[in-house]
């Protein structure tokens, strides 16, 4: 008996040894960087290691709001973050409606085709999206050429290097890239709706709009609710690449969101320490948001989403 027990123990330890290298990778790339948060409490100059005499406490957190310029900048960044996340949240029903009406199409080939081509942009990078935007909207791009030959414009309109409607344009690009992909989840949920429910409604003479409004949409609401909660939890994280590639001297005041601000601070005049301080501030607010929305979800649905 003892022997068997030992054998089992050795085996369980050996199996642990097999996964140890991978646990080390996780520790190095996911846990170890957390130690970098200390940089926010030091006066860190890149090539030198951290030493205690450079400890500055909460100095960088005060610096964030120390003078007019910094306050204005931070407020501007927060405004952009809130505006872009707000627009996304406001239109978060779009993929659901997209899926619902796509499902109404009878011609299977057309349906498949639409689904395939609208999902494709999700798989290309933001650099490619920017390249496409540049090709279509530059002064010799398709939009300007067509508009000018139709006499709608007298001279090329500048779309990308301009500060007009930046937030809305960013939402449009995000939707162009993601809507088809986001709809897949709803299409699956629609496929799961009880066929009998719909047949019964049809027998009762309900029109298609009525079926959509009274059966399909209510069946999708739980999924939609989770998406909204996730949106809320990620309110401060709009991502980095999209705004990095689309930023230029003209739209900078409107496109700089928190994630981009952190990067620009580190690479620009702010330095690493201030940048890390801003990112800690962001993380703390995000955790609060996540816990709040998870609590909200528990309250409404009876279960959280994390």
């Amino acid at each position: 008996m003892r022997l068997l027990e030992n054998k089992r123990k050795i085996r369980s330890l050996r199996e642990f040894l097999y996964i140890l290298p991978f646990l080390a990778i996780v520790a190095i790339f996911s846990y170890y960087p957390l130690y970098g948060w200390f940089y926010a409490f030091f006066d860190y100059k890149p090539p030198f290691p951290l030493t205690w005499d450079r400890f500055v406490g909460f100095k960088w957190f005060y610096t964030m709001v120390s003078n007019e310029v910094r306050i204005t900048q931070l407020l501007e960044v927060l405004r952009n973050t809130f505006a872009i996340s707000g627009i996304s949240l406001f239109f978060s029903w779009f993929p659901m409606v997209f899926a619902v009406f796509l499902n109404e199409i009878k011609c299977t080939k057309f349906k498949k085709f639409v689904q395939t081509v609208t999902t494709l942009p999700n798989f290309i990078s933001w650099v490619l999206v920017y390249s496409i935007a540049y090709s279509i909207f530059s002064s010799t791009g398709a939009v300007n050429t067509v508009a000018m030959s139709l006499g709608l414009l007298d001279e090329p309109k500048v779309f990308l290097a301009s500060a007009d409607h930046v937030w809305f344009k960013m939402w449009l690009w995000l939707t162009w890239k993601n809507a088809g992909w986001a709809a897949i989840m709803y299409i699956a949920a629609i496929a799961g709706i009880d066929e009998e429910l719909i047949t019964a409604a049809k027998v009762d003479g309900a029109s298609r709009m009525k079926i959509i409004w009274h059966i399909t949409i209510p069946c999708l609401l739980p999924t939609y609710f989770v998406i909204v909660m996730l949106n809320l939890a990620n309110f401060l994280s709009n991502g980095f690449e999209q705004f990095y590639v689309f930023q230029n001297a003209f739209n900078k005041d409107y496109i700089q969101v928190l994630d981009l601000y952190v990067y620009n601070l580190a690479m620009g005049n702010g330095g690493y320490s201030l940048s890390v301080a801003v990112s800690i501030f962001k993380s703390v607010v995000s955790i609060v948001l996540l816990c709040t929305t998870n609590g909200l979800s528990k309250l409404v649905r009876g279960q959280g989403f994390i």
Partner: protein
Amino acid sequence: MSKQKAPRHKMRVGIGDRIISVITYIVYSLFAFVCVYPFYYIFINSISANNLSEKGKVLFWPLQIHFTNYVNVLKIPDLFNALKVSVGRTVVGTVLTVLFSAFLGYMFTRETLWHRKFWYRFVVVTMYFNAGIIPWFITMLNLGLTNNFWGYIWPAVVQPFYIVLCKTFVESVPRELQEAAEIDGAGTLTIFFRVMLPVIKPILATIAIFAAVAQWNSFQDTLLLMTDKRLYTLQFVLYQYINQANSLRGLVNNASGTIDLAASLAKAQTATSIRMTVTILVVTPIILVYPIFQRFFVKGIMIGAVKG
């Protein structure tokens, strides 16, 4: 929507439905057009006469078709090198990610594993936090992974999400399969390579496509980690080309190292033709691989949705 809901006699329901049908077809055709046309537009421009594409004359079909752009673009040494780096990281990264995810997914189902639950959580919880780009950058710097090809690979190969997918899949495989192998005297590793790997192929295909697309598309890591030109990826080089075309006029007065590149671009080809051709080059692998694997990732997201 509320307009359509206006009181209507049951007899006329059919007409309302038909109107909705027509509108849906038109709207979805527009959506499809908006998604397809940009790719088509860039493609026809890349094979049309460069002086016409530069002026924006190519809109609906190619004019004076030629394929020299593709030949010439690959002659730019930086670009060919970037292609090699992109292909290299995609192949190496994908193979390792798939293997590691499969192995860890399998190991976390082994009840004999020492403190299995704890280590599983240890890995999965990393999905929910992120130290931020600067601490991550400093870590990579300390590990010597900046200006190093492996900087593209190691941070990406152990992905909790893929591990969860694999674990879920392995759990759905009948236990008898493993038990039978065990009775025959197979060890942990033998069971993995001989029994599990062949069985969980479908989920591995899903993960492979996700990982390959992520590796191919990755841009931020090059931006943060690499200053060595030889390690630039296609995505990064494309981004540089766009921006150089963007400020070509500005570059003339700007005494930076990028001038010769801009000048050589202008000599050989137009900035537009290079940009369009490289774009097609970067997007083609995605478009080629996409329809084949579409069914796989739809399945993948479902498992993720159920689990997540």
